[in-house]
């Protein structure tokens, strides 16, 4: 059952630019604070700020300038073993300090038994998986006392025992837990290519009211035999053209949704990320009919 008492997500009222943000990584700490680029928010992996020291100091400096969203990678919502309360407690401590306007993690698993594999691993789209995801998401929302977002994963393998499509799973998660969906457009494109699905059908099937954030990133094409390729979600390149097209469609469908440019490997200069952010903002304005920056 959806928990109706959760604090709803809302963008900070002080935003003076369209809600396009960039992922804050260590290489950008000084550049962001010194140049104060025109972006709506910064997003970080909270796990990078467990403990103290320089990372936390730089996050404090950035937080003085921008709204922050937390995008976790370590809760393993899809794990049949449940989630780690110690990990949740550390995240709660950071939320209390940095007051992020959004908190998210993924509809995937990483932990099994005594190992945490530090990756976003696939799960069958079954009723059992849905129940486990909802149980762990509910536990997280109850623990944090707020509504969270859950991201659709990139997948490189499909299960034969699926009871539902991935978009049905995502809608059901949102409906049953009251969470929002963080729609990763690149992941939709990647899994559609890898499993020969229609990415537009996916976006068309996601219920508008559930989408709370969008992610954009670049993938890497991995050649395999028989002229086939698999796309890997590496977050290491500019957003590809078909993903921009898909994003345009998503904006038409979902409206003005906070959008993040993610880049985690082979980090480019900050200016490259900002160019990508500008592109997302321009596309948002075109699709929604003029600048909405001053809303």
């Amino acid at each position: 059952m959806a928990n109706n008492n959760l604090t709803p997500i809302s963008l900070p009222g002080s935003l003076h630019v369209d809600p396009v943000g960039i992922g804050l990584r260590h290489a950008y700490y000084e550049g962001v604070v010194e140049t104060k680029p025109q972006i709506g928010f910064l997003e970080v992996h909270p796990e990078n700020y467990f403990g103290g020291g320089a990372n936390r100091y730089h996050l404090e400096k950035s937080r003085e300038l921008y709204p922050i969203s937390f995008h976790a990678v370590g809760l393993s919502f899809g794990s049949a073993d449940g989630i780690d309360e110690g990990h949740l407690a550390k995240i709660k401590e950071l939320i209390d300090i940095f007051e992020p306007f959004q908190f998210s993690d993924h509809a995937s698993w990483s932990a099994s038994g005594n190992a945490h594999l530090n990756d976003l691993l696939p799960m069958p789209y079954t009723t059992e998986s849905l129940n486990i995801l909802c149980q762990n998401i509910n536990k997280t929302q109850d623990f944090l006392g707020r509504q969270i977002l859950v991201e659709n994963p990139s997948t490189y393998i499909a299960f034969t025992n699926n009871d539902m499509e991935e978009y049905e799973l995502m809608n059901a998660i949102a409906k049953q837990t009251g969470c929002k969906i963080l729609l990763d457009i690149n992941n939709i494109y990647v899994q559609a290519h890898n499993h020969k699905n229609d990415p537009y059908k996916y976006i068309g099937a996601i219920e508008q009211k559930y989408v709370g954030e969008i992610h954009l990133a670049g993938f890497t094409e991995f050649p395999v035999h028989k002229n086939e390729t698999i796309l890997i979600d590496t977050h290491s390149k500019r957003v590809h053209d078909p993903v921009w097209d898909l994003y345009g469609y998503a904006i038409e469908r979902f409206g003005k949704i906070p959008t993040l440019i993610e880049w985690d490997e082979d980090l480019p200069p900050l200016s490259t990320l900002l160019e990508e952010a500008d592109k997302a903002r321009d596309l948002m304005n075109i699709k929604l009919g003029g600048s909405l920056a001053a809303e």
Partner: protein
Amino acid sequence: MQLNEIQSQFKDMILGDYDDVLSIKDFTKLFDTNEIGLDVRLHIYRDNVLKKLAKVLEITYPTIHSLVGDEFFHHIAMLYACKYPPREGCVNLYGEEFSKFISEIKQTENLPYLYDVALYDWCFNAAFYAVNDEAIDQKTLKSISPEELPKIQFIFRSSVHLIESNYPLTSIREFCDPENEQREENLDINKGGEKLLVYRPDLEIQVVSLKNDEFHMLQCLQNKNTIERSLEKVMPSYPEFNFQEFLQKTFDLKFFLNIQLMDKQ
């Protein structure tokens, strides 16, 4: 097959014997095997996990990475990841057993200094992620009567790590640091050992070179011995040890988080 079993076998496919897991028909029939094939698809997950963990270790152990080279480092890092996967969803402090692991493999038996160098790299990583805390100053001792002073235990700041080696650890790390423009052209690995304290007094990590007596006194104190007991252990080997100077230096450098008075030991 239930989800916990699927996840357990998927984990074994990544960390354990890949071929063994792929011989389990109940596991392989879970996946859609189209023209690209199951093997290729599963290998992507296996590679992603192991390469990411190797990258985490490379960041934690930059000196080892530099000493043994990229290809060999990633080979042993992936072996390590299979044997010692992370236990939690945050990898900031992943890889603590790597120094022992690297010293026990056959290919490194002629590189006896790797164990100490890996420990030294680990000290930097642990200090970097240590929780923020504030040192006490020497005034704290004023509340302690002269009679009670010997019964004091020191609680060290969370970032403090002591390390001793027969090898010149600071020179080795500086020599291997690609951003160090003033590094020496050659390194004499046998030029002598060091006793060091690595910590993070504020944002930057600092390394303090210690004399033998200072090092052993700090070791005793860090092992929760009182001042009195620590002096009993140190003085026989170092009769010239000046405790007042030691106290001044350690407070000046802000090593201690707190003190506690022990009634008995």
